[in-house]
């Protein structure tokens, strides 16, 4: 039974406590730091600057420079330091400012952190969280606008979460901090609530002040429908909602699944939905080739082939670096119209 997203069933307290994803992640971090003295944060500009994307706002004031550590621009050093600190009992949270920078420190992530449990036969765990910001849409060009979800997902030993709203963000972040494994938190810049960028309003939802957890690896239904299953996560959940509204006008009922976690992947939730709708489209803002969208399509084709009435489809980022010019970048990002077009073709083709 697939969980229900807060986007489907928002609570109705008279006074909702609406905050952004960045604030929700900061709140989860602060509350866990109060509970657990072994939790601390390292990264570039996370202190006085509050993090370039505002994910550590106010933490320096409350916890001081010992636990909120601005680092040199040495990602390999501070991320692999987190692995060593975790090995001896700390619970580090490290911020990789832009995911695009993974190339300078990927060894520390995929070869060190992600393999510590396996290499040690489970005797040395790696309870660390790596937060990073992904995605474009604001003309930051080809080294500051990528998503790279699949680059992490391809490598075993890391969990990956990527929330579409603030409620999920807090619950998943708490789970991430408490998890004994490396968890990659991939926050999308268009959703996060960055001071210097716009934010998709729908991401700002009621977030209870009390601590709560959302299990890593559990997808959620954002909208129920009967004609087609649209799978997304983070930004593409909102693309899917916009597309579903447009499809509704055309008499097509779309079900939307928010993966929320990319590893482990809740394929059962996708399969259950596809078995009902018989149609699948996956929307992915990461490069198409060997991406999460392709993986979801492959697994559905392997496991629910006979339930599919039409060929599965994906709308992903073209296999090209994000271009700078607005017209070029905007045309590359998966859009609601693009989803509608594919779904209409999908259903149209079945007629003849």
């Amino acid at each position, binding site marked *: 039974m697939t969980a229900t997203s807060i986007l489907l069933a928002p609570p109705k307290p008279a006074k909702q406590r609406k905050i952004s994803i960045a604030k929700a992640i900061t709140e989860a971090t602060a509350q866990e730091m109060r509970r657990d003295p072994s939790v601390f944060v390292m990264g*570039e*500009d996370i*202190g*006085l*600057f509050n993090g*370039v994307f505002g994910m550590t706002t106010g933490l320096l004031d409350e916890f001081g420079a010992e636990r909120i550590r*601005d*680092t*040199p*621009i*040495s990602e*390999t*050093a501070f991320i692999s330091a987190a692995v060593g600190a975790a090995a001896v009992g700390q619970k580090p949270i490290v911020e990789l400012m832009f995911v*695009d*920078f993974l*190339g*300078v420190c990927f060894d520390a992530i995929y070869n060190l952190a992600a393999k510590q449990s396996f290499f040690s036969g489970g005797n040395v765990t790696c309870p660390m969280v790596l937060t990073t910001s992904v995605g474009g*849409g*604001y*003309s*930051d*060009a*080809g*080294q*500051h606008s990528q998503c790279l979800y699949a680059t992490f997902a391809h490598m075993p030993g890391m969990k990956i979460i990527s929330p579409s709203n603030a409620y999920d963000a807090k619950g998943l972040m708490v789970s991430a901090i408490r998890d004994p494994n490396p968890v990659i938190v991939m926050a999308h810049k268009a959703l996060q609530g960055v001071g*210097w*960028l*716009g934010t998709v309003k729908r991401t700002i939802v009621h977030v209870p002040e009390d601590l709560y957890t959302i299990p890593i690896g559990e997808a959620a239904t954002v909208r129920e429908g009967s004609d087609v299953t649209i799978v997304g996560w983070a930004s593409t959940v909102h693309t899917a909602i916009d597309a579903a509204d447009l499809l509704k006008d055309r008499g097509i009922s779309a079900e939307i699944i928010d993966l929320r976690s990319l590893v482990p992947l809740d394929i059962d939730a996708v399969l259950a939905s596809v078995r009902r709708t018989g149609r699948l489209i996956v929307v992915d803002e990461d490069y198409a080739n060997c991406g999460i969208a392709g993986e979801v399509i492959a697994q559905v084709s392997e496991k629910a082939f006979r339930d599919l009435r039409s060929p599965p489809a994906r709308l992903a980022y*073209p*296999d*090209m*670096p994000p*271009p*700078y*010019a*607005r*017209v*070029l970048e905007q*045309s*590359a990002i998966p859009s609601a119209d693009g989803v509608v077009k594919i779904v209409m073709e999908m259903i149209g083709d079945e007629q003849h």
Partner: protein
Amino acid sequence: MQSRNDTLLWMYEHMALSRYYEERIKAAYMIGKTPLFNMANGPLPGEMHLSNGQEPCAVGVCAHLGPEDFVSAGHRPHHVAIAKGVDLPAMTAEIFGRSTGLSGGQGGHMHLFDPAVNFTCSGIIAQGMGPAVGAALAFKMRGEPHVAVAYVGEAAVNQGAWHEAMNLAAVWKLPFICIIEDNGWGVSVSKAASTPVPRNDIRAASYGIPGIHVPDNDTLAIHAAAGEAIARARAGEGPTLIEIETSRLEGHFMGDVEAYRPDGEKDALFARDEIPRFRAMLIEQDIADEATVASIEESGRARVDEAFDHALGSPEPIVGEALATVFAESEEL
């Protein structure tokens, strides 16, 4: 060979031009971003890292370079690109994301490539080190007299890529110069918070090469130090590391309010702005009179204004063509 005075005037011309260029970028950047600042809006979206204050580092070094000499800059590249002689209209069109840009608007301000003058830059800290070392290697292998220069900030020196490239250039004795623009800050992190040594020229000893420190953002001292280093490199005597004390007169990027700066620090930097000081020196020492200097400034502004007119008058890129440049066409084999 230019006369010394010509060189001094050339350096002033390009510092003044660069400063005016950034002022125009700044004005254009803010269009559509007030009252609510949103980096995505306006005719000039995305991150913008201005070079105001760091002009001496650009002209003092590039005064010694020709078009074949290779230069890589970082995320704050405009002043260096201008001093290296990058095509100004095409560079401006690139920054505005137009079809006539250096790369047709695909790269933007952190990805300016001008093969005509062997200039490149990038958005990943210290990423330009290796390519410059590689260009220096190519020049050496081909027996060409050219040099390669990599510009990095003082905070980039703690990135692994910097160390590896310095070591490689030194062990292969390549015609390579690393210019460290020390503006004291890596975004909001002070040099003292990221680097255990007060000066990075000390680190030249790790590579057995000369390390030079130029205090006080001094154009003439930069020009002298770079001249020696580049001459050594051309003579096959290997790399040099130069750290220059310079000033970042704007925020890290547009929109940065610099709350992390100690009070008064910014005022001191403006009080010590090298451009007016250098201007006064030119006149004091009778290198040029007020009128000459004014006309140099005037013509510089005119060049910049033309470049902006060209850029703003150019069409946007055509959607669909970008994909074609992900891979270069393979010729018939």
